[in-house]
């Protein structure tokens, strides 16, 4: 019995000690919470919040006062009133918004906020007072975003890196597709390149016409299938196949124009099959790099919105022309299936140098050679 009493007493003592420790830790935490806010950390936190359009109106850190603050009864203050690391007590009137960071906004009886009340890492308490606008309180994992390891939330340099990496990613994807096309559909790529070489303007016109005809052709295809009753079941498959075919033609054409551009920069290579393939790959990579260059430039200029916009417009224009010409060439060459004679051979065909002139008087028939025997020397 005595043992039981002793155990119970020990448990009570341990519980009391634990409670005291927890209470002290909580109090210490609260003190540290208010004390650790500096102008710099507040600036960083607010910069992160201003990324959201809803929070863009939050005043700059320099407009915050640190610690508890009170708008006295019968007093009128012009907003925004901003407080950090303390509670804002409103007993009078604020003409505008009220903001607190790491603290509450308490609107007491008779108090009025004629704008919005926004408590960041705190809460808005209506203790008989009135808020004419919206009341908001933001809590949660705020500091992880606002104060990351680097100290900056999303700097312009990281944004630039992101944009450049995005362009690099697209380049890598195109190179991979290009290698696949070189391996599995090299003749088709050659034929589309030839079509581009023969007539760039014609390819652009064909590309524009194709773009304009894409949607009506798809509609016609669907209508045709629906009219055949049984074909109606094929409509979803036909639409998917149509879109894939169009995307394939655009890609083939874009790769062809990239290879052509690369060949223009690097020059033609003569040699065996191996050399020719290596040259084709090199041309393709250089060409794609050339076509993606405006996108890289736009990414690199993302620190300046105006320059970035200009660069993006150029990039879009270059890409559109390349894709349109490529699509046109792919259509003209029937996806690279219809392979016309090479330009040099065509030129040779157009001249009459290959023909042997026939004399007006005619040609004397040659005598048919007859076998003859030679007598052996006697």
């Amino acid at each position: 019995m005595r043992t039981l009493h002793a155990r119970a007493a020990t448990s009570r003592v341990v519980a009391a000690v634990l409670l005291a420790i927890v209470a002290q830790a909580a109090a210490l935490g609260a003190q540290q919470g208010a004390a650790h806010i500096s102008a710099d950390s507040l600036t960083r936190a607010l910069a992160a919040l201003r990324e959201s359009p809803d929070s863009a109106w939050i005043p700059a850190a320099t407009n915050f006062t640190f610690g508890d603050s009170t708008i006295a009864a019968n007093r009128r203050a012009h907003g925004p009133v901003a407080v950090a690391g303390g509670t804002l007590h409103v007993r009078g009137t604020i003409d505008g918004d009220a903001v607190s960071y790491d603290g509450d906004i308490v609107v007491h009886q008779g108090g009025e906020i004629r704008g919005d009340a926004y408590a960041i890492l705190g809460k808005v308490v209506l203790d008989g007072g009135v808020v004419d606008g919206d009341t908001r309180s933001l809590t949660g994992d705020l500091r992880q975003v606002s104060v990351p390891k680097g100290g900056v939330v999303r700097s312009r340099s990281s944004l630039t890196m992101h944009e450049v990496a995005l362009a690099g990613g697209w380049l890598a994807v195109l190179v991979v597709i290009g290698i696949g096309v070189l391996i599995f559909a090299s003749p088709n790529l050659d034929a589309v390149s030839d079509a581009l070489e023969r007539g760039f303007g014609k390819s652009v016109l064909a590309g524009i016409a194709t773009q304009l005809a894409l949607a009506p052709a798809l509609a016609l295809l669907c209508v045709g299938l629906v009219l055949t009753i049984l074909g109606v079941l094929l409509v979803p498959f036909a639409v998917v196949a149509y879109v894939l075919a169009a995307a394939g033609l655009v890609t083939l054409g874009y790769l062809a124009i990239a290879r052509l551009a690369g060949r223009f920069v690097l020059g033609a290579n003569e040699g065996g099959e191996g050399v020719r393939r290596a040259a084709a790959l090199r041309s393709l990579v250089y060409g794609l790099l050339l076509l993606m260059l405006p996108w890289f430039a736009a990414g690199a200029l993302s620190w300046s919105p105006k320059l970035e916009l200009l660069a993006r417009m150029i990039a879009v224009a270059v890409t559109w022309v390349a894709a349109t010409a490529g699509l046109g060439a792919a259509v003209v060459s029937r996806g690279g299936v219809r392979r016309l004679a090479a330009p040099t051979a065509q030129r040779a065909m157009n001249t009459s140098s290959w023909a042997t002139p026939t004399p007006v008087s005619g040609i004397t028939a040659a005598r048919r050679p007859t076998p003859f025997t030679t007598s052996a020397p006697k």
Partner: protein
Amino acid sequence: MTRLGLAAFVASLAGVVPVGAQTWRTIDASRQVRDTNAVSVHVDYAAGRLDLKPATGSVLYHASVRYDAERTEPVARFDSATHVLSLGVHLRRMHLSNTDDQHGAGSMHAELSGRVPMDLSLELGAVEADLQLGGLRLTDLSLRGGAADVTARFDQPNREQLRTMTLQVGAAQVKLLDVANSRVSHINAEVGAGALTIDLGGVLSRDVDITATLAMGGLTLNVSPDDGVFVDERSFLGGFEKDGFVKKGDGWYSTNYDAASRRVRVHLHAFMGGLTLTRVQK
């Protein structure tokens, strides 16, 4: 030793490969009712869990949004000039990771005033939603569900005449329960590849016209055994089961149509989808 090396290698990889960062925040927003002018409410919620119900107290709205700041952005804004209230969560950018898993998606609990007449439009993406619309003062309702799983109920009568109810269901599962309590006169339903259930339970005080366009999806209509039903069907490969219906002139009439005190008229345009009509005694 080999296993230890392999484990160390995997552990080092786990340290190197960045895990999708998540920054969870909660925003509580509300506004007190100032007048009883009509309000347009737009709820646009991309992914997560949504609960909506009538507010208690004198607030125009109250919204508590838990969201991942890395990928989403909350919207809780009332424009006092135009009387437009916008609530929801927008995707900041597309992520390859799954956004509709339990850990990846946020939640929104919203409350709307029952004192103010409002037209409510909801645009829901990959959302699991429970909407308690009874007790509000809805004048118009528009619900658009992409890949959502939505249950909307009118447990209490709507305190206004609901002029139109527009339902656009993509690949979503949408159930509307006790719709008669909404005091609706016209329902316009478009179903792509999803499933829409309209339960006309509750107090049906007037005749209801339903215009349903079904592509490949289905519409289930629950009506009381006492209700007269008329179906004007224009379908291709789809349609509805005609047991208990009689063809008269322009459409199909239930046998009790002429004697019924409440009538439901369905104008059905079905491509491959079907209408299922069930009689539910409540």
